């Protein structure tokens, strides 16, 4: 029993080892003369879209792949799905290679690409589900159970009879997410799922991801530019830039590592003119509220509060973590050096 349990934990769901993907892109020259020259003497650029990345993802994780445009996120996801062949290195899902055992791997994957739809445009939403049911050989019981689950989580029941072309973007996304879950995949890949969605729809997507992860144990891999989403959902972040993994840890770990700067917000009982501390500076003051910036590497928040409270009458404090956008920007910048 114990040995079995250990095995279940030991084998990660997704493994990638030294993945590399190289593209050959034709260089386009400027202007009319350039275009003529290009006709006879084309030049190529070698692009290392993915330059040796390795990681493992365990069952039940929610992992966010983030990085600036062109960092290699989509390319990596495509290699994991089996759509793209790595130039070198390998990736395995459940011990199987998506390139060599495409059908077996793919039958357990759910994929949603934000921009393109896989729904039948002119027919009601339900028809697309029926097709998915047959393609993935989902039996009736499981199908109905999943549909009900999707109704609970996404309220898909109210959309199921509407033709896809009449759905709003947010509704369509719900439809796509539901369709991706019809066959109870063990891994769900989401490529920019909240693009163009309003706040309410984004919230629905987030709740959906949390639900399927908690209730169905689905592992979720998400690429996104929406850092709010990242903050709320991803316990783990893989940050890519220029085809390499820059960071692979939880958000708090990354934040601590990158930006040690914090802001301490103090609400005073009594206004004071002169607030001075060797390890912190006042960056803003509004009435009785003071913002003080300090370095966590030089002094802890607790120590600072303790120091200040000796001189000042403090009514309330809070600590402002750096904005995640700032953190990520620093992460990206770090690699540009």
């Amino acid at each position, binding site marked *: 029993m114990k040995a079995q349990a250990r095995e279940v934990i030991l084998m990660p769901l997704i493994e990638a080892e030294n993945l590399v993907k190289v593209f050959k892109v034709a260089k386009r020259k400027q202007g009319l003369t350039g275009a003529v020259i290009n*006709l006879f003497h*084309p030049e190529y650029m070698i692009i290392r879209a993915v330059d040796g990345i390795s990681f493992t993802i365990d069952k039940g994780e929610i992992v966010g792949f983030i990085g600036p445009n062109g960092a290699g996120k989509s390319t990596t996801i495509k290699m994991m799905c089996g759509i793209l062949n790595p130039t070198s290195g390998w990736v395995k899902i459940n011990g199987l290679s998506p390139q060599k055992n495409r059908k077996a791997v793919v039958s357990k994957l759910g994929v949603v690409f934000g921009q393109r739809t896989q729904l039948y445009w002119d027919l009601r939403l339900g028809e697309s589900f029926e097709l998915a049911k047959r393609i993935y050989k989902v039996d009736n019981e499981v199908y109905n159970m999943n549909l009900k689950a999707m109704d609970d989580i996404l309220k898909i029941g109210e959309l199921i009879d509407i033709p896809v*072309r*009449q759905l709003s*973007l947010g509704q369509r996304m719900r439809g796509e997410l539901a369709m991706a879950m019809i066959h109870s995949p063990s891994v769900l890949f989401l490529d920019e799922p909240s693009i163009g969605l309003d706040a309410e729809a984004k919230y629905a997507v987030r709740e959906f991801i949390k639900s399927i992860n908690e209730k169905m144990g689905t592992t979720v891999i998400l690429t996104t530019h929406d850092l709010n989403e990242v903050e709320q959902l991803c316990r783990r972040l893989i940050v890519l830039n220029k085809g390499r993994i820059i960071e692979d840890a939880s958000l708090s770990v990354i934040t601590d590592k990158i930006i040690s700067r914090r802001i301490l917000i103090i609400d005073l009982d009594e206004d004071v003119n002169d607030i001075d501390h060797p390890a912190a500076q006042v960056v803003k003051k509004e009435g009785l509220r003071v913002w003080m910036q300090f370095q966590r590497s030089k002094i802890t928040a607790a120590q600072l509060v303790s120091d200040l409270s000796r001189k000042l009458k403090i009514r309330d404090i809070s600590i402002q973590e750096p904005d995640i956008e700032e953190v990520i920007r620093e992460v990206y910048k770090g690699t540009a050096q």
Partner: protein
Amino acid sequence: MHPYGYISKMKIISVLTYRLDVLISFVSNAVMMFAMAFLWKSAYGAAETAAGVSSRQMITYAVLSVLLSAFFQINVENNINHKIQEGLIAVELCKPVNLLMCYLAEDIGNVIGSLLVKAIPSYLFALLLFREVFTPDLTRIILFVVSCILSYGILWTLSAITGLSVFWFINLGHLGTVKDGIVRILSGSLVPFWFFPSYIQKVSGWLPFQYTYQTPLGIYIGQTAIKQAFRDLAVQAVWMLIFSAVLYKLWEKAKNKVVIQGG
């Protein structure tokens, strides 16, 4: 640079950039020219003339017909259809340029690009391979060029009208293809109407289509007398004016009725 001129220039560049496209067009034209030229050559067999046209003239006709279709590039219909399908037409109408003029500029750019890259090499190729193809005197060439411009005008306005019909039909479907098919047959591009019984020729004379291909080609191969040529050019101009007027009216109507499709 004037925005319309810029659009044309960009289109020329994009035509030149797709090397494989260029090659395929060239091969495509060559295939059609071969097929039609050999068809007529075989058909004539030993006969010198038929229906008042010599074998040599007919082969020139066929070859040139393929070239004309290669550089009568018209995309306005698809452009309009596309933009409507994607719900972008409202956005396009907000721009401070006349939308139709933009499409015209783009198509003209396409024509010039095609001329440089596809039509002229193809014609030189044809001259080399078919000893029967000839070049007429200067007057005819000038008349031919003028006639081609008018033909293009007729075809372009017709396409634009078809494209605009999307505003009322939502989905163009294959109306464009049907229209193209009809035009192709009735324009005399495959077989000029001289081979048909006279009652068919009479009917065709009243329709605009034969004036798109048969007229310029007839002038080129010397089948049409110069006097007749001028008359034909006049008819072409009239048809072009008629279609332009219809187009203008439709355009005004369409702008008033912007229907947005999709989400």
